[in-house]
């Protein structure tokens, strides 16, 4: 896919947007989940703090007692990171009794920040992060309570690892789900874009066919958005064709209109003095050669690429034979066409031109009989085997040509510029035309000793 293609552009934009949107969504959801989890974690710690406060009492001597049941074995496991500690606060001038703490803390302590750094909130609770001797990251809630016989500082700590594990597990599942969703979106997008833009590809292919001469208009049902485009393209093609046709017609008309004055000059030159007459004749002949050359060029340019052409062989051959019989009543013309419904892949004018020139040639030299034979034929060497071929042979019973004469006749006029109009066997135009259609021509000796012109032409055998 080209970088500048519409498909690629839309696909890149859609993909970039999907990735950005999904990453932002993932981050937002993750942040929200973390906030929620932390709040729940602190609520749990606060509830445990209350349980500890309710379970601990202080006797008049300032000794602490009580056995808080927090329903979590982690408080009894050393180094678990789940800790509660009750420190008796020294009364003014009194002595300090021993602290009460969960098994998990052992003889260690948690380093608490100063009150200036983390003050108590309105409910006289403060929360902060800390770490224990085992290196666990802790979330600590702390309060101070007056226990009738003295005050005590209550602290409950939870292992943040639990919180982080929970958030990480959630994030993992979230990212996996969003990644799958993202990949799915990109694939669906790509399919939608490819399907949506397929008509444009169709247009491009159809235009390619037009340029290759395989079609002459954009056909097919196009979506509403590009139907006007197709219509405009067709109108443009049609206009282009009309302009070319008009130009070609005008060249043709100009060339043909010159022929009458040339005829007048040629004929008038006979009444002139030898030198003048010769001059005029030579110039008129040159003019005629030029006119013919440009007419032939226009003709060949016109037929170029007309691969869709189809001409029924039988009516063309029969029409020509009828005409030749009229022109040469003393000759016998035979048309042998099999299969009768053969179709030649040529413009009718071109097929008739080939046929007309060859049959006229044959009639010129025939003693009594000219035979036109059409048969299906195998594809010639090096030609596309996917199309049909026909062989067309035109035989006369005239004097024929020798091998060197045949070679010479085929050589002459191989190139348009070298050919002289009105001379030779008319084979130059025949081989020019058949070459345009990838046909083959060769000369041979006919069964009756005359000349046999044999053509292989592309065909649609219907």
């Amino acid at each position, binding site marked *: 896919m080209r970088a500048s293609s519409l498909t690629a552009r839309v696909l890149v934009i859609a993909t970039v947007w999907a990735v950005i949107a999904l990453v932002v969504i993932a981050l937002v959801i993750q942040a929200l989940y973390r906030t929620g989890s932390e709040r729940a974690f602190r609520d749990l710690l606060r509830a445990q703090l209350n349980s500890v406060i309710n379970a601990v009492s202080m006797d008049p001597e300032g000794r602490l007692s009580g056995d808080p049941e927090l329903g979590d074995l982690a408080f009894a496991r050393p180094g678990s990171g789940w800790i509660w500690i009750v420190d008796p606060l020294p009364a003014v001038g009194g002595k300090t009794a021993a602290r009460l703490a969960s098994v998990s803390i052992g003889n260690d302590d948690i380093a608490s920040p100063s009150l200036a750094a983390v003050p108590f909130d309105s409910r006289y609770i403060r929360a902060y992060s800390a770490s224990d001797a085992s290196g666990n990251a802790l979330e600590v809630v702390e309060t101070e309570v007056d226990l009738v016989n003295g005050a005590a500082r209550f602290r409950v700590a939870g292992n943040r690892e639990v919180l982080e594990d929970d958030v990480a597990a959630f994030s993992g599942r979230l990212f996996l789900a969003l990644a799958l969703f993202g990949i799915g979106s990109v694939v669906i997008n790509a399919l939608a874009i490819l399907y949506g833009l397929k008509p444009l590809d169709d247009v491009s292919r159809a235009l390619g066919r037009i340029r290759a001469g395989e079609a002459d208009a954009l056909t097919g049902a196009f979506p509403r958005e590009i139907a006007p485009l197709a219509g405009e393209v067709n109108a443009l093609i049609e206009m282009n064709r009309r302009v070319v046709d008009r130009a070609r017609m005008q060249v043709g008309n100009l060339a*043909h*209109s010159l*022929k*009458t*004055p*040339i*005829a*007048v000059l*040629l*004929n*008038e030159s006979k009444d002139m003095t030898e030198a003048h007459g010769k001059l005029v004749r030579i110039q*008129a002949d040159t003019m*005629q050669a030029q006119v013919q050359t440009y007419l032939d060029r226009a*003709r060949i340019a016109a037929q170029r690429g007309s691969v869709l052409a189809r001409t029924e062989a039988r009516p063309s051959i029969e*029409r*020509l034979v*009828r*005409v030749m019989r*009229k*022109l040469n*009543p*003393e000759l016998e013309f035979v048309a042998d066409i099999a299969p009768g419904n053969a179709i030649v892949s040529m413009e*009718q*004018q071109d097929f*008739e*031109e080939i*046929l*007309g*020139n060859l049959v006229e040639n044959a009639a010129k030299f025939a003693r009594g009989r000219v035979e036109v034979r059409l048969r299906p034929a195998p594809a010639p060497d090096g030609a596309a085997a996917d199309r049909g071929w026909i062989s067309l042979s035109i035989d006369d019973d005239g004097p024929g040509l020798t091998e060197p004469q045949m070679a010479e006749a085929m050589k002459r006029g191989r190139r348009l510029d070298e050919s002289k109009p009105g001379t030779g066997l008319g084979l130059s135009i025949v081989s020019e035309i058949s070459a345009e259609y990838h046909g083959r021509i060769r000369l041979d000796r006919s069964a009756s000793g005359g000349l046999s012109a044999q053509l292989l032409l592309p065909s649609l055998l219907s």
Partner: protein
Amino acid sequence: MRILVVEDDKDLNRQLCEALVEQGYVVDRAFDGEEGHFLGDTEPYDAAILDIGLPEMDGITVLEKWRAEGRLMPVLILTARDRWSDKVSGIDAGADDYVTKPFHVEEVLARIRALIRRASGLASSEIACGPVRLDTKASKASVNGTTLKLTSHEFRLLSYLMHHLGEVVSRTELVEHMYDQDFDRDSNTIEVFVGRLRKKIGVDLIETVRGLGYRMQAPDNAG
């Protein structure tokens, strides 16, 4: 032999007419399709030379109308279009032969001669009747090998009769085929020409068919 030339180019028309007259033909000329069609439809011609590209009415239409109206004279078409499809449509419209432009007038003369000969059912350019021979190519007549000295009127008369050997040809028909449309016709002059021609030939091959006209035929066919 009377020929119609329909060609809009004045110079080409003149050249064709001059060459035809030189060959002993009587020629009428037209410069557009309407005029050409009218002449061809109302006057008897032995052949017509018809350009395809004509003003007013194109040559193919003129030809089709003639044929539809039952005018059967041989027609030679002149065309600048030399593709076979063009030639074939011309012939299909009823032409008997074609010459593509540019051409030498001699080519047209040869084709016209061949068309007239073919229309008369003759195979060769030389027509023989007993000792008399008519060379259509050279526009000459001879008796026993001796060239006859004939005026243009006498030649036309002999030529017409020899193209219709064995047929009875009326005086009117002879007048129509010997003079162009502008000539002040008098069928009595025909008798004078026939008399002179008989004298020059020396052999009595032209028979007067009372009340009908003349018939020329070789002695062994006479009966």
